[in-house]
């Protein structure tokens, strides 16, 4: 067993390393090296040419023009020290930007994903239980209909309707001005208030497909002999629906749950742009636009790590929650 964990951990680390390397290489491929980007940015800010040249020269100490392998080596060593460099755009270290932004993104994405699955599981199970009824028909159609809306289209729609037209919900920022982070009721409610629409747009557009998946799983499990036998054994409906049907129908969705969190982190680029919600997605977009290499690489890496981590957790924990999965490769999440 130790063997498997070691192997799986080694593979996660290897994947991470490869992705770090790949990310590094890929971002270097971007048109316009960091310096030309910086020049462009300064120009846009109205700096006179001479001044720009001198700024650029000083940036050269940061050696973005050093040989790639040296940059790579520096990057890796710095990363190992938790140093992701300093942003070109913002007067801060990348680590501090991420440290400040990431909790918000994670808050939105994890909450949304949890709600998606909570809704999907209950709704899907109900549909399966009432298979063939009107409720099932209407619900299935509705979930298909909802899944055909991209979350950002829904988000824009909600912004127009609830944000601008009726002005009942905030459509931007993480908090109201004046509210400072802290363990206060005001902070928590305000944070939820502001995260409401982003979460709702993810949930509404994402829950339908998952509910359909749950419905399919449940219908399959409902047809299993052991459910019939459990009824014959006189077990209560509650016990059967939770431990016999629910558990076995939810199991295949478990991996999907963890990977969806990672996937949604990537999707935050669009969502946070629409809601001007300065999380990692927002900063990634800014970094991309400004060719802010350190920022881009840092965020890219964080999102990748989140994905690798969630797949890793999914792999390792799946064996724990599904006793059938025991050995080696078959315990993998996919």
């Amino acid at each position, binding site marked *: 067993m130790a063997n498997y964990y070691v192997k799986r951990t080694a*593979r996660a680390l290897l*994947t991470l390393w*490869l*992705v770090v390397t*790949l*990310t590094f290489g*890929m*971002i270097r*491929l*971007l*048109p316009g090296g960091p310096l030309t980007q910086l020049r462009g940015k300064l120009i846009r800010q109205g700096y006179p040419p001479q001044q720009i040249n001198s700024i650029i020269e000083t940036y050269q100490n940061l050696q973005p023009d050093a040989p790639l392998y040296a940059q790579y080596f520096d990057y890796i060593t710095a990363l190992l020290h938790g140093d992701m460099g300093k942003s070109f755009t913002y007067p801060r270290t990348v680590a501090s930007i991420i440290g400040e932004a990431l909790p918000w993104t994670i808050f939105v994405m994890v909450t949304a994903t949890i709600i998606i699955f909570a809704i999907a599981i209950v709704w899907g199970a109900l549909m399966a239980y009432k298979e063939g009824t009107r409720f099932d028909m209407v619900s299935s159609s509705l979930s*298909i*209909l909802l*899944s*055909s*809306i*991209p979350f*950002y*289209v829904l988000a*824009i*729609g909600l*912004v*127009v309707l609830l*944000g*601008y*037209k009726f002005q009942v919900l905030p459509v931007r920022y993480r908090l109201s001005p004046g509210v400072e982070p802290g363990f206060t009721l005001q902070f928590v409610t305000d944070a939820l208030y502001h995260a409401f629409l982003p979460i709702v747009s993810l949930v509404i557009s994402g829950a339908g*497909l998952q509910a*359909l998946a749950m419905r399919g799983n449940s219908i399959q499990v409902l047809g299993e002999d052991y459910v019939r036998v459990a009824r014959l054994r006189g077990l209560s409906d509650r016990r059967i629906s939770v431990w016999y049907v629910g558990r076995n129908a939810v199991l295949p969705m478990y991996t999907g749950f963890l*990977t969806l969190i*990672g*996937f949604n*982190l*990537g*999707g935050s*680029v*669009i969502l946070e*742009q629409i809601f001007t919600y300065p999380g990692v997605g927002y900063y*990634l*977009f800014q970094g*991309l636009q400004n060719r802010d290499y350190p920022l*881009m690489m840092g*965020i*890219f890496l964080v*999102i*990748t790590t989140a*994905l*690798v981590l969630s*797949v890793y957790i999914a792999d390792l924990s799946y064996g724990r929650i599904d006793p059938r999965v025991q050995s080696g490769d078959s315990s993998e999440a*996919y």
Partner: protein
Amino acid sequence: MKRTDDSNAVADGGSRVEEFSFETTTSDVEVTWKERLGDFYTEFVYKPGLVAWDDRRTRIGGIILTVYILIGTVGAWFYPEPISNQVPRNLAPFQDWSAPLGSTQSGVDVLAMAIHATPSMLIMIATGGIFATAIALVIGTVAGYSGGTVDAVLTSFSDIAMTIPGLPLIMVLAVVFRPDNPVLIGILITVNYWAGLGRSIRSQVLTLREASYVEASRTMGVSTPRILFKDIIPNLMPFVLVNFANAARYVVFTSVGLYYLGILPTSVPNWGIQLNNAYKQAGALVGTSALYQLVVPMVMIMGIALSLILLAQGLDRVFNPRVRTRLAGESSSLEESDENTEVMSQ
């Protein structure tokens, strides 16, 4: 021990020990290419169509998709291209038949924009879907079927591809390659979408290759490619089809999102550009006067996504021989009895 030549060993005595010859039948069997073409038509067009039509989901999905294809071909052919100042500026919808769905602030017909965004979107969908499923199919089947080092290498490759966050990766690549060719965009968007698909295909192939009928083919000395094409892939088809539709939907969502963010070049008309235009320039969010500019592309996006989801829900039936024979009205009486034997045989 050698088998005795004693004819008593056979229950019925010697009478049955006749030389069996293949030429005993009198039926003249001839197969012309016309018949083959006909067979092909029934197998790959008529019957799948029949199955698809039978299911409400695929029927509606198919109809919607057909409408889009018509818009993208005939519509785009006949309807004038969007040009600035082709109609008066800021027309509201349903006011003026020169621009039935209104016009933008630079006098572009909104409907023309919506229509002319369709062809490239359809190409994107098709290439994205084909690329994702084809790569997944190739990698999944090769890895699953060959096993060993090939499998290990391909699987690790997909693992890594899978753990790179899709959207950010695509954005970076979009900035690097600035693709304006819909074919390239379709491929770009699915650049690592195939990975998850490949993994699930691989695990299905792992099961399939142990299936008795595959073993039988192997035993007969059938070549590996032929086994893959005749025995493995047809059984993956329902799964592949469903995922084709899902990949296509992903392409729609992602490409529109990228156009909306302004990350993809604006040289090709796209609903995302329309959204962006409505959002950023027409000020469609404030007040209602420019809302139609937002609604038209939204409806276009949702319509095609809906058709793809509906297809994904029902397409797995299309290549299911049980369903198709039932619908084609071929001897159905045996099906029930068949299911019984299966129950028993487990």
